[in-house]
């Protein structure tokens, strides 16, 4: 049983035998560590009285012996690992569960305040206890986040150096940190996550409680402290998470490339093995490579190719006016209505007038219509919309025209 030992003595023992304690931590992780092995190690460090050193360590409570097995005190272990920068990273899942504990404590504190079964004193006592508990966990999280960031920064530097020496170990370690310790935090950090939603809700509750007149001053102060601590720790976790991502992302990208390369090499081995075994690689079926060549005349491909070649011809837009085929002198003269209009300065149906005039007897219906619908200077021609449609024919023409009559009047 350890004797009573004060702070100074305990600290001095841990400081004096820190390296032995670090060795014990490392050996303990490998498996059972006997008292004899520890004594041998202490002797190998040039210590004259190994038994006395071991007794001091036991009396200070730094280690204990159970069934000849050495066990190190957890707090001492954490301290030594922290001092040695060899602390293990706390996985994101553990951080998440600690945050859930915090949320549950805050919820419980709030529920106690509203519990009608309890008297006021009990309500405040229980509530305060839960808030203190939540704050304690938040403090732990702050430290853990610090420790995780330090671990990631130190590990990434070591891993960079070891990349080409031991690629496999590099891949395993980087993947573990990225996939287990970093990436899952992105999920619960997201504003849409359940945890983030709860955090906002509980922050509001704490803020309300810290200003409430329904609780005593102790609860108001506790709520205010927890509110601040929750906000600060959440931000601190997020900031450190960002830094960890920045530190590890390039390494994880390297791992992804290395994985790709290893897969390619594994594929190459498989191809060689199949070739040597004369196995069918089924290239036609799986690695189909196009090779169209002209075969039979007028095959579909030839037609396709012909159509495609048409596409490739250079298209030049032609905006020039085509030449007249006929000499302008020989062009037919349009029907001249001027004489007829002089004789009949006003009519209800101009086309009817033209068609019944002997002067235009030899002209076709088409030519008469063309003349009527052409503008004549000094004459007003208007469509009679109120009239019924009329049918116009000519004895020498097989066509008929159905149209509204045109009124004509000399201006």
């Amino acid at each position, binding site marked *: 049983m350890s004797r009573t030992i004060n702070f100074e003595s305990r600290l001095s023992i841990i400081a004096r035998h820190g390296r032995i304690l670090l060795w014990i931590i490392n050996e303990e992780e490998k498996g059972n560590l006997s008292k004899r092995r520890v004594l041998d190690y202490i002797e190998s460090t040039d210590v004259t009285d190994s038994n006395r050193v071991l007794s001091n360590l036991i009396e200070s409570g730094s280690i204990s012996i159970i069934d000849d097995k050495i066990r190190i005190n957890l707090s001492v272990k954490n301290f030594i690992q922290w001092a040695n920068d060899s602390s293990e990273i706390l996985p994101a899942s553990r951080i998440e569960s600690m945050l859930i504990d915090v949320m549950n404590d805050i919820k419980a504190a709030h529920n106690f305040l509203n519990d009608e079964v309890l008297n006021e004193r009990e309500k405040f006592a229980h509530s305060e206890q839960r808030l203190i508990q939540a704050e304690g966990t938040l403090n732990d999280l702050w430290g853990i986040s610090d420790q995780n960031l330090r671990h990631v920064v130190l590990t990434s530097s070591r891993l960079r150096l070891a990349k080409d020496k031991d690629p496999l170990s590099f891949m395993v370690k980087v993947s573990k940190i990225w996939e287990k310790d970093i990436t899952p935090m992105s999920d619960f950090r997201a504003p849409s996550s359940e945890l983030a939603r709860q955090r906002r809700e509980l922050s509001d509750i704490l803020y309300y409680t810290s200003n409430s007149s329904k609780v005593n001053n102790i609860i108001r102060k506790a709520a205010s402290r927890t509110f601040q601590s929750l906000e600060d720790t959440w931000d601190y976790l997020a900031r450190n998470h960002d830094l960890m991502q920045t530190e590890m992302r390039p390494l994880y990208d390297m791992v992804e490339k290395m994985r790709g390369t290893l897969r390619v090499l594994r594929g190459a081995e*498989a*191809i060689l093995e199949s070739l040597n075994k004369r196995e069918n690689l089924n290239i036609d079926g799986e690695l189909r490579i196009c090779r169209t060549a002209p075969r039979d005349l007028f095959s579909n491909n030839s037609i396709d190719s012909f159509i495609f070649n048409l596409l490739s011809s250079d298209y030049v837009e032609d905006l020039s006016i085509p030449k007249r085929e006929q000499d302008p002198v020989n062009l037919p003269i349009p029907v001249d209505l001027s004489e007829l209009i002089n004789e009949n300065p006003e009519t209800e149906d101009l086309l009817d007038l033209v068609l019944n005039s002997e002067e235009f007897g030899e002209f076709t219906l088409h030519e008469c219509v063309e003349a009527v619908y052409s503008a004549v200077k000094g004459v007003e021609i208007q469509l009679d919309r109120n009239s019924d449609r009329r049918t116009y024919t000519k004895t020498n023409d097989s066509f008929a025209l159905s149209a509204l009559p045109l009124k004509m009047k000399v201006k």
Partner: protein
Amino acid sequence: MENKTTKQIFDSLRKGKHISVGNPLWSVIEDNQEHLESLFSQIGFNLQVRSEKGYAYFLPEDDDLAKKETVRKIVGILNMILLDLKPKLNQTDMEQFIQGNLSLPLTSINLHSTARFSNALKSVLKINDSEQLRSVIKSSDSYGFHKVENDRLFLLHASHRIFEFSMNHADKLLSGGEEE
């Protein structure tokens, strides 16, 4: 896009060539992907553009395929070259070679000196010596999986298609083994 360029792309692809990043036609394909896919599909050609990997090719739907023997040769040779380089290059250099950033002098390729490569080359691929091997490497660059410049071999992005085929083959062998 000029029709002459379209024809150039069509003529390359229909002969089995793969167009990778770095080829002047690649940016034209990337910029006009939808138009070209639609245009070529109208005349029965299936344009595949692997933007994330940086290459494009025609995937034949009928029997218009390149000769199996020549394709098998280049598939075998490129995979063997990687295996030959594996113990000679570190991880980073191997990645660089696969990505086409690192080249290999043709004269340094001596697969026949390794028994397992030599066996596959001589008795399966009918490539009897290094001279013939180099000649096959040079002539098969028309597929666009690799290029030979100044007597150095560069892998092009389209070589990913071959290695993807190899990886799938390995996965099949592995799953076949597990089933047994």
